[in-house]
């Protein structure tokens, strides 16, 4: 399963989200989950199983598939719940 964190530039916030997702994936011991980050314009529906974006990109990410919209990209508790829920949706937890 692949998680993809996205932001407008693919440099700053998406990378931060990716780091935090990686921590959580380790913490939850999710098997076979890869985490990457990129800018939203280079992502397509086939790029990942679950897409993570901040609120401002909600509209731009619509249509990609399973999109998780985060209120704060540095709120680890919010992210942990979102990752858990996504893992459950995709049968990995």
């Amino acid at each position: 399963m692949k998680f993809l964190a996205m932001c407008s530039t693919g440099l700053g916030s998406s990378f931060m989200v990716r780091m935090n997702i990686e921590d959580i994936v380790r913490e939850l011991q999710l098997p076979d989950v890869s985490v990457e980050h990129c800018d939203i314009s280079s992502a397509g529906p086939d790029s990942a199983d679950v897409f993570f974006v901040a609120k401002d990109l909600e509209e731009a990410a619509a249509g990609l598939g399973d999109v998780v919209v985060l209120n704060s990209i540095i709120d680890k508790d919010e992210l942990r719940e979102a990752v858990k829920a996504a893992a459950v949706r995709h049968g990995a937890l």
Partner: protein
Amino acid sequence: MLSELLTAEKIRFSSDSLTWRQAVTQVAEPLLAAGDITAGYVDAMIESIAAGGTYIHLGYGIALAHARPEAGAVRTSLSMLRLTEGPAPLLDLPEHAVDLYFCFAAVDATAHTTAMSSLARILSDTETREALRAAGSAAEVTTLIKRFEEDR
């Protein structure tokens, strides 16, 4: 290491009431003065926010201003500006009330991973984040960062 990038002279405090444009200009100032970024980089950050780039708001009143490396990043660098007398809301939107601005420059997409990961970790740690937001001097900020790094 974050503590090597975010040195005392790159940490500023302002008690002025600023607009977001002034805040971005001020947080970028130490990097501009050190030659870490060009004036074009500052313009690019402001343009990208003006074009709807409130994504730089990380939550908790903290924003990470940055632009593409090719906009004028000379050296990978980081600065910080804390507004002690109230926020400078991005695009004047109350939901983007930011009073802690970071300015980040990366020379390419891979060179900055270490610094970004430690910044992400430090800001995602509730206790350290609160302490950082309450810090009143550059010395306090650098002590916090070093302590966080040592604990890891």
